[in-house]
C-alpha cells in the first residue's frame, strides 16, 4: 500500500501542475497573435536527423520493461510510476511551450525555428 500512497501524492502534485500549465497555455494560445511559422524544408530536414535511434530506443526500453516484468514481481511497481511519468511528460511539454513563448523572436528563429 506504500506504493499506492506515494503515487497518490505524486499524482496529485503532477495533476495540479498539469492542469495549471494547461490552463495557462490555453490562455496564451487564445490571446496570442498568430506568428509566421518557419516551414522551410531545412527546418523539417533537421527534425528528421537521428530519428531511427529514438524509435529504436523506444522499442528496446518498452520490451526491456516487459522482460523485467516477466522476471520478478518487484518490477511491476515501475509501470504505474511510469504512468504518472506520462502525465509528467505533458507537464514538461507545457513548460517547453512556455519557455518558447517567452523567448524573443530572434531567439526563437535561431532555436526551434518556430517563428521568424
Amino acid at each position: 500500500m506504500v506504493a499506492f500512497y506515494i503515487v497518490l501524492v505524486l499524482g496529485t502534485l503532477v495533476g495540479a501542475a498539469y492542469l495549471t500549465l494547461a490552463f495557462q497555455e490555453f490562455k496564451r494560445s487564445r490571446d496570442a497573435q498568430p506568428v509566421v511559422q518557419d516551414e522551410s524544408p531545412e527546418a523539417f530536414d533537421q527534425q528528421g536527423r537521428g530519428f531511427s535511434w529514438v524509435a529504436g530506443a523506444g522499442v528496446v526500453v518498452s520490451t526491456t520493461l516487459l522482460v523485467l516484468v516477466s522476471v520478478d514481481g518487484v518490477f511491476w511497481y515501475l509501470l504505474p510510476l511510469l504512468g504518472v511519468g506520462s502525465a509528467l511528460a505533458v507537464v514538461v511539454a507545457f513548460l517547453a511551450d512556455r519557455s518558447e513563448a517567452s523567448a524573443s523572436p530572434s531567439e526563437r528563429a535561431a532555436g526551434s525555428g518556430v517563428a521568424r
Partner: protein
Amino acid sequence: MAATHLSGWLGYGLLLGLGVFMLAIAAAVRPFVRNTHDFVIAGRRIGLGFGVGSVIAVWTWSMAVMMSSAQAYTWGTSGLVWFIVPNGLAVVAIVPFALKLRKHMPKGYTIVEFIRVRFQSRTATAVMLGAMVFGLLCEIFINLFGVVLVTGVVFDLNTTVVLLVTLVTITVYSYFGGLWTSAITATVNTLLITVPAALVVLYVLAKVGGAGAVFDKVGAKGGSLLNPFSAQTASAFGISLALGLLASTMADQTFWQKVWAMRPGNLRRTFVWGGLWFYPIPLTLGLLGLVGISLGVTPDDLGSAGAGGIGPYVVSHLGIPVVLIALYVLVILNACYSSIDGAFSALSSLVAVDIVKQARPHIAEKRLIAFTKGSIVIAGLVGAVVVSSNVDYVSLVNLVFFIKAVLIFPLALAIFWSRTTARGFVASIVLGIAVGLPLRQTGHDLLSIVALEGVSLAVVVGVSLLEGKRFDFDALRRDAGALEQVPGAPDAVLEGAR
C-alpha cells in the same frame, strides 16, 4: 468472487458528469474558432503540450486499454509485448512521413487531399476517402463498444441507453470547437487516464497481496505465461496486429489532421513523445490481466464480455473502494471520449476539405462550417444506428484493420517515391485485398497478412515502374490549402463561423 454492488445511477452520473465537464471546456474553447480553417486545423497553432497530451489520448482507445488486460490474461507477458510494443511504435513511426509531407505540403489539411493533389485521379482519391471515412466510423464504433463493455460489466447498464447518452454527449461538445476542443479535452483526458490508472492498479495489487504474490501465482500456472517472447503468441495475433497498427496511424486522418495542425517546429517531438509516453498506459493496465490469472478467473466468469472484460471484472469483484472502481470506469470513459471526439474532428476535416469544398469550391464560409459541423451530428447518428443494431462490430473492426493494412506500402511509396503512379496505387490496394481477404476468411491469419502486404508492394512497384512517370513534389506546395485565408482578407468571412 462477488461483485461489488454499484448503483446504475453512478454509472450514468459518470457518463454525464464527464460529458458536462468536457462541454464546459468546449464552451471555453469556442472563441478560438473563427472559421472553418480554425475548426478543422486549429489555425496550425497547436503547441507541444496540447500536441503530446492529445496524441496520447487519441491513441488510447477504450478497447486498447481493456485489450492490454485481455492480452495479458490470455497470453501472459508475451501478449503484452505483442500488443503494446507495436502500439507505441506505430505513433513514433509516423514521424518521417509527417516531416516529408509537411515539408512539401505545408498548407495541407487531410491525407485524402494529398492523394488528390499527388495523383490527380478521381479513382485514387475516392478509394482513399472511402477508406478514411470507413476507418473513422469504425474507430467510433469500437470505442463505443468499450463504453458498453465497461458499464455493462461494472454497472449492468442497458446497452441502448449507454450508447445514446455517450453519443449525444460527445457529439454536443465536439460540435462546438472542432480540433481545438478535441486537442484540449484530449489533453485533460490524458491526465484523467494516466494517474487514476496507476492508482487503481496499485490498490488492486495491494489488495491481492502484492505484486510478488501475483507473480508467483502466475508462474505456478505453468506454460509460457511469463515468457515474453512466446512464438505461439507472435503467430496467433502478434505479427498481423503489428502490421495493422502501423497502418492505423499512417492511414488515419486523426493523426494527419494533427500533423498539419502542429506548430511546425514541434512536429517530431510531438509524435515521439506521444508514442513513447503512451507505453506506460497499456503496460500499467495490462497488469490487471495477470491479476485475473492469479485469481483463477475463468472465461465462464467473464461471460459474453469475453477476455476484454477481465479488467472491469477484476476491479469490480475484489471489494476495492467504490471511488476506485469509479476511477477505473472514468479511465475507460476518458479513453473512449477522447478517441471518439478525435474521430469526429478528423471526419469533419474530410467533409470540409475533400467533399464539400470539392463539390462547391466557392461555397460561403457560413454554409461550409454548417456542413462541417453537421457531419459530426450525422456521424453520431450513424454510430448510434450501427452499434444499436446486431452487427458484430468487433469482427467488423478487425476486418477494417486488416483492410487498412493494405495501405502501408502504396501510401508510404506515394509519400516517398516520386515514381509511384495512381494506377499503381489503386491496383495495389485492389489486388492486395483480392488476394489477402479470401485467405483471411478461410482462417489463414498470418499467411493472409503476408500475402496482402506482399501483393500490394509488388503491384505498386511493378505498375509504377511500367508507367515510367515521375512526380514533382513541389506541386504539393502549390496545389494545397483549400481553406487557407488570404492575409488581410476582410473579417466578414469569419462571421459565419460563430
